[in-house]
């Protein structure tokens, strides 16, 4: 199962909003080359391996457009 899923059609744009890119410390995302139906450019996952499943992108996303798979409960993770 993938670590991340982006609901492209819910997104209001990596450029207009861009909160996911801002809160991701690991630079997992970059703006997509294509636009969604509303004309926004959603993020795409470019560094999935870097993802620590911190859930920042999911928790901050104002449009409920990102979901992160639940972290396998490693010691020390929060």
């Amino acid at each position: 199962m993938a670590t991340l899923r982006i609901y492209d059609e819910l997104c209001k744009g990596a450029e207009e909003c861009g909160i996911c890119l801002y809160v991701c410390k690991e630079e997992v995302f970059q703006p997509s080359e294509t636009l969604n139906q509303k004309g926004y450019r959603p993020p795409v996952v470019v560094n999935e391996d870097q993802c620590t499943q911190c859930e920042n992108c999911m928790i901050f996303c104002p449009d409920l457009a990102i979901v992160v798979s639940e972290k396998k409960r490693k010691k020390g993770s929060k």
Partner: protein
Amino acid sequence: MNELVHPYHRFIRPTVTHTTFCPGCGDGTVAQSILRAIDGLGMDMDDFVFVSGIGCAAWIPSPLFNADVLHTTHGRPIAFAFGIKMGLPDKKVMVVSGDGDLVAIGGNHLIQNARRNIEMVVLCVNNGIYGMTGGQAAPTTPMGVKTTTTPYGAFENFFEDISGLVIAAGASFVARWTTAHPRQLTASIKKAIQKKGFAFIEVISQCPVQFGRKMGMGNAIQMLEDYKKRSISIKEAKKLSPEELKDRMVVGEFVDLDKPEMVEEVTRMIRRASGEAQEAVDTGRG
């Protein structure tokens, strides 16, 4: 392969295709924080009645949340919520609205119901501006800020501490966070939902369009960066002088106390009165 599904999409009204907020608006982050709190408590949307007023933040529950929702007139959601709570004391009643709605036009309902300490959660999304009508000054707009109704800069003293007002009025639970603190916000919403009393949470939230772009306060990210920089926990703030706290945003849980709650007091009063009435019937004094 199982596709990942957003855990809170099940709380969204099926007829809603996407949020109504502008790109980068903090309202959506607040919406998700509420849903995460409900999920975290293992509760269901049917345990709640949501009430909102007029303004962008009022559209957090209406129509987004798949629950009983009353979208009311400007400034009055707490007054409507009063009637709902009295009628359905076993339900959790949550008011979600903005600073203009709850503190300007509806200020007295906020004060009086905090005084009554009636059990309900009031979530005030404070963006410091009238967003929906196009960026007019609010009682929360800092002095000097140029808005569409203060083109030469806001010239009124402003509410720097709504939470302080609600504490003074007598609420049981009062907290303040910003949209840069969604995890802490969720934790406080959980406590607020469980609180037997009036629970008020102020969330300082970015309006990247009317406050940010038009007033030169930057985009959503610059505003979040600003919240991070200026916010200070209540614990840390206690160590600083008022002078040092100038321009800082004090965040945290300010009040969490137990005191008589109105619905319980009313229930007690009814039990007393109806018992007395029954006694009068039994003894022929009816």
